[in-house]
């Protein structure tokens, strides 16, 4: 045992263990996605969205955090509600079912590369740490395996509830999941053919040095996007829980936190799928038009540009706040002083953030001296550069995935729900065939051009 521990430097063990924190990313994304969904729905339906719940603090009064407090209220409500079990249900499966999709949420992030492989000099030797928790050659297949297992939650919930609505919802879920997993896998094959590897780190580095997957495989991208929206079971593919027909589908008989687990499982599934799409088709952690080598060679400059971009975003937010405050001052609204007092807090926080970011950027520009050493004919940077690169990569990946999360919300509130037979028709007769033709054409072109 002790030989295994001693075989690697402690810093490698530390980073390897710290990477397990990425398992919680989908759960953290729920906190981001639910307010985003609500405000997005409000934006699309030309209304405000939830903005009434608040926290009262001493000087600034009612703080609403742009509607974010509503999220905490909902969470508290779900947690403290009574957990009821309808009579006649199959107790064991009824209680097991909500846990399955939520447990798989914690397993799925293990193969996604969160940053490029870290290579740095430590104690005279080169340390290499991969960007994903599990750097395996099967990579993306494992993710598909897990996501195919997560449908058991809905199926068992529907069956164990012993209710007709739940049962119909479960049948629809299992049929939709099986159908669209085929499309999902087939549309992905084009990219895998070009890259020649299942490993997501390899796929990202191929995209970094050639072109993004969305340019190389635009048709596969569209098929994959549609199939993964269908696989998450969200509108317009949410026949499994269509309110007008089935009350709430497979989770009709669930309440309180058991319902909450399904709800959170759905949002985490969106998160995982948007991470997957941005990794497969949008270059993953790769910064557009800049290779990792360039970033590492100009680490101080890259960090200060990052700080500059963040400061610009905060300034844009402050601009919105000031513009809205000016408009609010001219109106006769009775609560305008309360709102202005609340905005004062945001403005103070915003300006502090801008100052800190600008100071950080200047420090990075002038004071950051990356140590370079040559070990075995290879240029290796110090740990500071490696951590900085990982930070930039992680932020780039988060930005891409949040953009895709927005696509999910956008689609949900734009398109009406499809009829069940239309979904099957779309899956088996249209997307599957397009994906097949795309795969064959890709294979022929790749053979002619002389790829893998």
């Amino acid at each position: 045992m002790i030989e295994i521990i001693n075989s690697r430097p402690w810093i490698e063990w530390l980073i390897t263990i710290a990477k397990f924190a990425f398992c919680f990313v989908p759960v953290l994304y729920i906190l981001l996605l639910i307010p985003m969904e609500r405000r997005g729905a409000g934006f699309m339906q030309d209304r405000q969205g939830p903005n009434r719940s608040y926290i009262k603090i001493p000087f600034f009064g009612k703080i609403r955090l742009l509607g974010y407090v509503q999220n905490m209220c909902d969470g508290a409500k779900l947690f403290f509600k009574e957990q009821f079990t309808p009579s006649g249900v199959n107790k064991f499966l009824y209680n097991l079912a909500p846990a399955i999709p939520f447990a798989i949420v914690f397993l799925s992030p293990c193969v996604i590369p969160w940053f490029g492989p870290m290579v740095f000099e430590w104690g005279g030797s080169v340390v290499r740490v991969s960007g994903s928790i599990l750097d395996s050659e099967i990579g993306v297949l494992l993710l598909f395996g897990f996501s195919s297992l997560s449908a058991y939650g809905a199926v068992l919930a529907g069956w164990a509830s012993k209710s007709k609505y739940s049962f119909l919802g479960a049948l629809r879920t299992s049929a939709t999941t099986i159908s669209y997993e085929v499309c999902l896998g087939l549309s992905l094959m084009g990219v895998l053919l070009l890259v020649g590897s299942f490993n997501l780190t390899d796929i990202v580095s191929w995209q970094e040095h050639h072109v993004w997957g969305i340019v190389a495989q635009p048709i596969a991208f569209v098929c994959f996007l549609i199939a993964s929206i269908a696989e998450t079971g969200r509108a317009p593919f949410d026949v499994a829980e269509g309110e007008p027909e089935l009350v709430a589908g497979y989770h009709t008989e669930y309440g309180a936190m058991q319902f909450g687990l399904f709800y959170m499982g759905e949002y985490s599934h969106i998160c995982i799928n948007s991470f997957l799409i941005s990794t497969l088709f949008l270059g993953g952690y790769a910064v557009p038009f800049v290779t990792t080598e360039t970033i590492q060679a100009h680490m101080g400059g890259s960090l200060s540009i990052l700080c500059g971009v963040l400061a610009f975003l905060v300034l844009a937010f402050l601009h919105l706040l000031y513009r809205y405050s000016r408009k609010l001052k001219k109106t006769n609204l009775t609560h305008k002083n309360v709102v202005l007092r609340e905005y004062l807090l945001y403005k103070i926080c915003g300006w502090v953030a801008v100052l800190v970011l600008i100071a950080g950027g200047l420090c990075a520009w002038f004071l950051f001296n990356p140590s370079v050493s040559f070990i075995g004919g290879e240029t290796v940077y110090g740990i500071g550069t490696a951590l900085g690169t990982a930070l930039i990569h992680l932020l780039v990946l988060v930005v891409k995935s949040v953009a895709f999360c927005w696509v999910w919300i956008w689609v949900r509130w734009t398109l009406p729900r499809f009829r069940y037979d239309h979904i099957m028709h779309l899956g088996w007769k249209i997307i599957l065939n397009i994906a097949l033709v795309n795969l064959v054409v890709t294979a022929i072109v790749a053979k002619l051009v002389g790829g893998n």
Partner: protein
Amino acid sequence: MLALIYFIILGVIALGSAICVFLSRHPLYGALSLVLSMVSLAGIYGLLGSPFVGVVQIMVYAGAIMMLLTFVIMVLNGARDSKTPMFDKVSLFVIPAVLALSGLVGFALVQAPIAFDASALRGSVALTSQTLFDTSSKGQGYFVLFEVLGLLLLSAMVAAVLLAKKRLGSINEGEDK
């Protein structure tokens, strides 16, 4: 050492759930035990240095085929009767056959010189693809079998569709309506 501990845990789960498949009265519980057994088998494949085979086991068997099976169990009326007797006349033949087979396999395993080496790669992606799709003239030619198998599955699917269509002559009639 660590691999051996994992192997024992997974083996116990796989065997236990496989026994549960026999003993469960309800078909759905049987199917779920089978899923558990398959997932733990996939873990054992991973331990034996064949992660590709393991993940295909999860994707194809536990994910797709067993999902289809639960679907069928739920659709058919069998889901409602949990009064199926555990033993009937067929068991007279099945149980001795299973016992004989497990005895034979166990005897063969005990006789065979098997060393548990978790570090050897047996079913990695590269190895599998080399074995299957070695198109050189010296290769074993498994790719021909692979393609033939694909054709076989296709013909089975076509036959199933034909069987499912009740009246072969009435395709045009149906479209008119």
